[in-house]
């Protein structure tokens, strides 16, 4: 159900758009039509605009532009390349940027943050130090020997 239109608002709309309701804002037309049915004053306002409405409604096609302009317009595709499209997915850049930002935050968090408890980190460090100072397990013997050999070469 549309809200009723005040006479003042009706008068404003007549002054702006004239008496042809199809030119009026769509959400006010029904209420305007209802007021027109009941108000002689409203009908008088519309009648006073009828002559100007008639003048404005007469066939009034825009004149054809000059032949020179039409030629220039039609030559545009021949003379000017369209803007190069390197991203053909229109607005898809919006979610793409969102995902890239999320990924960047994730990587940054991984680099800066401490993923383990401090005690776990200490234990892990101890294991790492032990792996250097202690005898390497048999499975890693070749690698350990290679590392030691390289170190010896550097010391020379």
């Amino acid at each position: 159900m549309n809200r009723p239109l005040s006479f003042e608002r009706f008068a404003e709309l007549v002054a702006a758009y004239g008496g042809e309701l199809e030119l009026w804002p769509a959400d006010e037309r029904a209420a305007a039509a209802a007021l027109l049915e009941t108000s002689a004053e409203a009908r008088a306002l519309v009648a006073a605009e009828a002559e100007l409405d008639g003048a404005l409604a007469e066939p009034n096609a825009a004149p054809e532009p000059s032949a020179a302009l039409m030629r220039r317009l039609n030559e545009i595709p021949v003379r000017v390349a369209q803007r190069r499209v390197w991203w053909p997915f229109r607005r898809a850049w919006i979610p793409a940027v969102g995902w890239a930002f999320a990924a960047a935050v994730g990587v940054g968090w991984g680099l800066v943050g401490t993923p383990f408890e401090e005690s776990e980190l200490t234990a892990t460090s101890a294991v790492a130090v032990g792996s250097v100072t202690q005898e390497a397990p048999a499975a890693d013997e070749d690698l350990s020997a290679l590392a030691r050999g390289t170190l010896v070469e550097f010391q020379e």
Partner: protein
Amino acid sequence: MPDDDAALVLRVGEGDVGAYRELVRRYAPKLSRFAERLLRDASEAEDVVQETFLRLWQRARDYTPDARVTTWLHRITHNLAVDRLRARGRLKPLPDEEDMPISARQPSLIDEKRRVVALNDAIAALPERQAAAVTLVHLHGLSGKEAAEVLGVGAEAVESLLARARRTLKAELVPERSASARGAS
């Protein structure tokens, strides 16, 4: 035709020259008239229309069906014309806009063609924004909301522009029409 227009713009975005030329055929006359109403200079208006269609050709991919094609193209034309008016220092702020006097015209205009000429003369003599608002709503079929979008103002401002324009046009044209009717009878 609006949906059809949107389809044409999408085809222009794919490089379809035929679609581009169809949009030129449909909109070059309206945009020329609109630009001329704003600029009061046929040569500058032609340059603005050319720039509008250059943008259509180059940026058709940017078009989104949020706005009708007619609104989109009129808005581009309006913005380009306003840039030129600003460069000339001719654009007045909206509240300071004053009605300009309308030149005297020959009475006894009987036939429809001459009445249309008189109407177009009267509209052309209005201040730029009023002329633009009347052209958009009464001649080019845009809604008040669409005209507001093109002109970059609120709906109330458009209603004010239209009301002032209609008041001037009525004073100029309606006595003339009555005289024409009397002359014809």
